[in-house]
């Protein structure tokens, strides 16, 4: 085969795998930002918190990092619920969400990151899964399990979340809170309770994404920064509250970044990806894959 074509195919495939990781990182935000309208800019910081906890626990126990991250989800759910209670009490209830709410999460992000630096140091941490050095080959295309397994676990988790939102009463209430708060009141459902539950879920998803992240790459306290723009880009391109759109956008984003990195060098890939987002925002703020507002 033409070596350039092989390069391109490999670039696309590993871009899709990278996209799986991005989908994990963005899915939680799609719930909080897309459905609940809570601009949680600290979402990637929660993911990094999860990643570093997984790394510490892995070093202590040797259990598989992804299993560890699943074990962490209840604690993160509780953390998320607690943060939502504070956010609701101080901002939503007052109707001050705009600037103050943004600044609140900006501050939370800083507290998490600096707290991590103070607790575990500024250096990189990693967790090696048992399959980390195995690579499957399909013809000329490489499928490193280090990327494939986290991507599949992430997609499975998102699938489970979609099922929960569509098929259960509580899940449908979460989807409804995005559209019509009054309707919930008529059904005698407390929207604050529903949003607290949903925000907890979004932070639990961040823990899972953290587990996936630390399998893919070493993580330090500031690793979340490069994800802030990415995850918001993905959620917006995906049409905010649509998890399916979010996954598609994440895969597209991964491919664009990875192909750019393959052909022009990794230092250009963020600019290309964020250039795309700027264009999306300028031309079609409601996203490419979602329904129109």
């Amino acid at each position, binding site marked *: 085969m033409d070596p350039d074509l092989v390069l391109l195919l490999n670039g696309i495939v590993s871009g899709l795998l990278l996209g799986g990781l991005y989908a994990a990182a963005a899915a939680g935000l799609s719930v909080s930002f897309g459905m609940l309208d809570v601009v949680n800019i600290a979402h990637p910081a929660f993911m990094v918190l999860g990643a570093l906890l997984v790394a510490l626990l892995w070093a202590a126990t040797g259990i598989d990092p992804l299993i560890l991250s699943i074990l962490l989800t209840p604690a993160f759910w509780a953390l998320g619920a607690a943060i939502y209670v504070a956010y609701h009490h101080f901002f939503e209830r007052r109707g001050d969400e705009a600037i103050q709410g943004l*600044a609140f999460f900006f501050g*939370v992000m*800083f507290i998490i990151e600096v707290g991590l630096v103070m607790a575990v140091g500024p250096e990189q941490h990693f967790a090696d899964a048992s399959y980390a050095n195995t690579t499957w080959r399909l013809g000329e295309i490489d499928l490193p399990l280090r990327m494939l397994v986290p991507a599949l676990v992430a997609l499975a988790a998102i699938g489970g979340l979609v099922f929960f939102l569509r098929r259960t009463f509580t899940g449908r209430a979460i989807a409804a809170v995005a559209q019509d708060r009054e309707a919930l009141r008529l059904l005698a459902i407390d929207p604050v309770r529903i949003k607290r539950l949903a925000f907890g879920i979004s932070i639990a998803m961040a823990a899972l994404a953290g587990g996936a992240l630390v399998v893919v790459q070493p993580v330090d306290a500031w690793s979340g920064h*490069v994800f802030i*723009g990415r995850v918001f880009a993905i959620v917006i391109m995906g049409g905010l509250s649509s998890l399916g759109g979010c996954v598609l956008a994440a895969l597209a984003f991964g491919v664009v970044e990875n192909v750019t990195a393959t052909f022009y060098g990794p230092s250009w890939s963020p*600019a290309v990806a964020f250039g795309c*987002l700027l264009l999306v*925002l300028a031309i079609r703020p409601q996203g490419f894959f979602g329904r129109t507002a």
Partner: protein
Amino acid sequence: MSDATLPAMPVSPASRWMGHGSFWLAAAVAALLVILALRGFGSEYAYFAATFVLQYVVLATAWNILGGYAGYVNFGAAAFFAAGAYTTVAIGKALGLGLLPCIAFAALVGGALGLGTGILTLRLRGAYFAIATLCLSVVLQTIVVNWDYVGGSRGAYVIRPREVPWLFDSYSGFLCAVMVVLAAAAVALARTIEKSRLGLGLAALRDDEAAAEAAGVPTLRLKLVATTISGAMMAVAGAPLPYLGSYVEPNSAFGLAYAVNAIAMPLIGGTASWAGPLIGAVLLASLQQAATVTISSAANLMIVGVVLVVFVCAAPHGIIGLFRRSR
């Protein structure tokens, strides 16, 4: 500079107690007193610490023109700040010019960047605007990292001139005096805007853009004026940075510390008035300067984060708001 875009005839409500001219005069006197006082100290550390604090006064005041007056949250303050710093590096290298002309160039670059951001984000509001500015910051950082002329990812050294201008005892003293003047001018400019027709229009569009349009306010144009002025001032804040440390590299110049401080300082002080960013910047920057010396650099960021969260929760209108309520 950007002054030309200001409407000529202010219809100030509150200038009853002090006109624009007297305020600029007061700012000039205050600047002179600060310069003389620092000269009295005369220590290099005092100059450095004062310059550090004052660059934040300019940055926070600049951020507040868009964020506080017009209600558009800019997460990309670091990008504008770094654009100023790198203008100094590039112009200094290309034309061999000193600090003062570089500051003027930085204002032009920052203003152009602000105008560009404004045009690109005209239709965006709230969180979308904030996220777009964050993206802009990443794009700009990538460009600088890949731009070898200004040092790329390795950074660039800037050598301070050997001879000290005018009557100053050291280059740090000169740099500090320049920063004092910039800070005084920034605060006076912010107050002029706040109490003018422009400020009234920005306040109207912050509260309700459709209603502002219906009242005859050209919201898009005012937004562009605000992004341009704010961008120019943020770049001016960053222009002296290369001389302050004699070394700039992208990760520190684009550091989120600048972005978070630019937001935290006005919010802590109070966004509705020119005094808010001034108070917030002086308090928070001094606190960080003290923390860097006595504790660690991680701890001083922790302080910013905690103070920011506590303030937005407990005092949504900042220190000024607390003061007004208790009166």
